[in-house]
């Protein structure tokens, strides 16, 4: 059973609850053990950097230090946490001077960090470590006919992490196909959802969300699959406000990729935090069930 040092991140305890529960459910059924890092702290999302860069790295480094002790890969389900951890980690390796500053601070908490642990995103763990083959075998309820818009968002792709394709990646599509679903091609899959602008510049963020929803809808997606609680909240929770702001009529369900995986693996919707969305996902549940029946017939 493969083990990981799991860093849920604050959002998964509040706005991203359903991501949390579905992630754990799916991990369990795929034989992946996510051991939560003890007494982790907030990674700071995008809000530390404007105040103090060094502090931002230090706060993330504290979690990395705790992960390093376990000798396991550091896994984050939240793209923002992932990006912060990934770069803090690589700077720790590259920049001895920075590492020294950070470790001086960590001493106060009896911790030390070398940047030796590997930082991974949950999506990538499922795809690369479990592998599409094994997932395919475990799919009990293929999401036949479900048109899913894979939404990568920014931070899982950018800044560029060891030369992967940042403009037109395909691995998320690969996973969705494995689940029996139909990933749609649309231009905005790596376009920004607005992130924390939803708070600091509402108008801008809503417009950015609108463009994403528009693109997904124009390409007849049934649901948007997300890999990050921030994206999920912006695309789902603020859909109503987008409609109000721009007189649009979007009501497209937004789900975490783990929830969709869960459905495909045959885990009951309730245990995946489904039907707690602001935008009802009943419609696509129906599709999922149908395909289920077809299969059992």
């Amino acid at each position, binding site marked *: 059973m493969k083990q990981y040092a799991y860093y849920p991140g*604050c959002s998964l*305890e*509040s*706005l*991203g*609850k359903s991501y949390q529960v579905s992630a754990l459910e799916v991990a369990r059924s795929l034989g992946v053990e996510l051991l939560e890092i003890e*007494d*982790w*702290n*907030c990674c*700071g*999302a*995008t*809000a*530390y*950097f*404007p*105040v*103090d*860069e*060094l*502090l931002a790295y*230090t*706060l993330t480094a*504290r979690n990395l230090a705790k992960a390093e002790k376990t000798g396991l890969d550091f896994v984050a389900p939240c793209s923002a946490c992932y990006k912060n951890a990934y*770069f803090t980690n690589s700077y720790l390796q590259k920049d001895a001077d*920075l590492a020294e*500053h950070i470790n*001086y*601070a*960590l001493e*106060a*908490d009896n911790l030390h960090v070398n940047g030796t642990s590997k930082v991974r995103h949950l999506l990538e763990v499922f795809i690369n470590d479990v592998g599409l083959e094994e997932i395919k075998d475990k799919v009990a309820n293929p999401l036949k006919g479900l048109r899913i818009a894979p939404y990568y968002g*920014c*931070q899982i792709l*950018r*800044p*560029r992490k060891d030369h992967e394709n*940042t*403009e037109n990646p395909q691995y998320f599509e690969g996973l969705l196909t494995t689940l029996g679903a139909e990933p749609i091609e649309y231009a905005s899959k*790596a376009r*920004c959802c*607005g*992130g*924390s*602008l939803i*708070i*600091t*510049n*509402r*108008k*801008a963020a809503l*417009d*950015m969300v609108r*463009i994403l929803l528009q693109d997904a809808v124009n390409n007849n997606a049934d649901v948007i699959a997300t890999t990050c609680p921030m994206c999920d909240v912006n695309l789902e*929770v603020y859909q*109503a*406000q987008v409609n109000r702001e721009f007189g649009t009529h979007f009501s497209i369900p937004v789900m975490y990729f783990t929830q969709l995986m869960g459905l495909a693996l045959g885990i009951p919707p309730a245990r995946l935090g489904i039907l*707690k969305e*602001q935008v009802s996902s009943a419609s696509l549940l129906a599709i999922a069930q149908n395909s289920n029946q077809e299969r059992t017939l």
Partner: protein
Amino acid sequence: MVDELSFSYEISNLMYATHGEPITNCLQCGTCSGTCPAVEFMDHTPRQIIGMIRADLKDEVLASNTYWTCASCYHCTVRCPAEIDIADMMYALKRYSMWKGSYQENLIGPDFSEAFVKMIVNSGRSFEPLLAAAYLPRFSARDIIQEGLMATGLVFSGKMPLLPKKIKGLKRFQQMVKRIIPIGETS
């Protein structure tokens, strides 16, 4: 040797870890601004900001909302033909303006960041309802109602807890923070 640092040098200095190419390498090609998803909400395009920095227009740059309108999606960074980490430069400008305490009044960003950091330092975790206190006052009445409605919705859906969490090792955590900035005092 110039006795005073140029503005662009000051900003480059603030881009501590990324080791991106210096902003003086900019070709003024506009890839960043052509890419930016938030550009139409900015007073100046990212390219213009770089031009202004190189022209030492410090006050004009600080007075611009551009860098507070950056969503840090790094799309400009990965596309920049001069390999300048533009998103990080925006962070650098945010830091600069917060230290100088000079930015547009009507902005929420600075208060939000401040509040965010204070909260982390006090609890080790971030927590939306508390955060709201920091930025809601800046919203129009209508927005506040929106926010309220949404929050209640979230609470009922069990997505939004009612009580904040604190980490256990908070004391030592705060000492750690104090070693970097004195902001740890606030409590």
